[in-house]
């Protein structure tokens, strides 16, 4: 019968419409600003710098080796190395980044800086509401804004952070044994 195909389709639509009152999985929209889904453990958006201890300026793990700056595909990282050395969180004198800028408008959250970093100093954040009132300077994140504590890292990526801490502890142990 001509028209039966159309009617069959309408029946499907009707079933979906009525089903949305009874079945949870037919009602899928999340009303975003009021309602928020929990982000997945692996979710990534925009990098940040990890620091240990209390002081953000002293505890940065970054030693300004510039590998991430070199490997970053869209070249959004700018690092200026310090001239002097400062003791890092383990007390060993190290260089530190005098300037560490990441441009939000250029960064594509690809995670390559995280993968290439040999010091576990840069990690991916989960923030995504990054809009700014100004178009230029406000989009350039400096060292102070990027630095976030290890505790924060544990909060957003619990499994990954635990693995990283274990790895660092192992490395420190091995170093102690050597000396």
């Amino acid at each position, binding site marked *: 019968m*001509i028209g039966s195909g159309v009617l069959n389709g309408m029946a499907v639509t009707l079933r979906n419409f009525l089903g949305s009152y009874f079945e949870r999985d037919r009602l899928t929209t999340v009303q975003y600003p009021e309602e928020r889904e929990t982000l997945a453990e692996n979710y*990534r958006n925009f990098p940040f710098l990890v620091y240990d201890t209390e002081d953000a300026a002293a505890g940065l793990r970054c030693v300004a080796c510039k590998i991430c700056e070199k490997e970053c595909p869209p070249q959004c990282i700018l690092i200026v190395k310090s001239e002097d050395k400062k003791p890092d969180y383990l007390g060993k004198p190290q260089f530190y980044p005098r300037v560490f800028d990441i441009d939000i408008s250029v960064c594509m959250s690809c995670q390559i800086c995280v993968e290439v970093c040999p010091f576990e100093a840069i990690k991916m954040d989960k923030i995504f509401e990054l809009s700014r009132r100004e178009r230029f300077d406000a989009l350039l994140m400096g060292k102070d804004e990027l630095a976030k504590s290890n505790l924060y890292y544990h909060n957003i990526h619990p499994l990954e952070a635990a693995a990283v801490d274990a790895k660092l502890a192992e490395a420190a142990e091995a170093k102690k044994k050597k000396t």
Partner: protein
Amino acid sequence: MSVGFHELEEAPPPMTARLEGELMEISMGPQHPSTHGVFRMNVALEGEIVRKLKPVFGYLHRNHEKIGESTSYLGSMPYTDRLDYFCSMTNNWAYALSVEKLAGIEVPERAEYLRVILAELTRLQNHASLLGFLLSDMGAWGTPLMYAFREREIILDLFESLSGSRMMCDYMRFGGCRCDLPPGWMERARKVVDAFPRFLDEFEKLIVSNEILIARTQSVGTLSAELAINAGITGPMLRACGVNYDLRKVDGYGFYPRFKFRVPLGEHGDCYDRLMMRVLEMRESIEILQQAMEQLPEGPIMNPKVKIRAFKPPIGEAYGRIEGPKGELGFYLISDGGPNPYRYRVRPPSFINLTILEDLCLGHTVADVMVILGSVDIVMGEVDR
């Protein structure tokens, strides 16, 4: 006092002039809702019938290949996500495969299985959303597209919890995959795959026997097998003409020879066949997924010999190709031993499938052009690169 129009220029022709026998040229796009991005077609019409059609590309050109030649091998990986942003997992795989060929890297078994699973999930979500878009182009606004997107979103949630991003996954690496499955992922994925046939049944009921859809698609945009082969068409579009050519069978890359699946073939090569081809392929993808999830072994997911930093493959060239959801996706790389490729070339399926658009559209009405373009399955990010 202002001067009248007729005093300045010659009077316009009287309104009674007719366009009989003349062609009218109109420009469809670049900002047309059904061109799937920024794509323009210069169409010469006689009445409503298309007599000439000239596709104009390049609005989304962003120098992908040149960038690939100036960044490191690893640095191109996130850029491949942005080629065909619907199927970033298969793009990653094709690129990883060519670099692995170039450098002779072995991939652990578990990683290969994961790649198959992710590629087939990508195929599911790409085909589902394509069907939605195609129906939306035909005037079925909203409903089918939203149903398709509902299913797609579930799969994208899986990608997000695995790789960290819904669409820009950047998940595969040379010699394996970036990270292992998070806890509970496999159970979720199994649930999604098991529930997918229900969506397909529903969707088929919604569209397949619909008289309007049949009238709009059957014997519209017929493509002959001969022309398809000569023009280098690949993917579901080629198989809709009845040519049995599927790289998963022909090349047998990955672990595809280990799985039992059929290659659906069309008969007429018209829009309806192309549409149904996608539905049938999704059913076969579910078969593959179920087998792959069953067989997934434990083990490492990354070849430990591969360096992440300062990766330099030996001098040589390689062409790696896979059967992407849209067709044969290949990457051609020439290495001069340095940290970045000397030549980096993408063989994009949607661009090459688009080259015969004029042959498909001639003699059909303007409204059919949208349907034909939708059934070709293009993503402008890949066409323009």
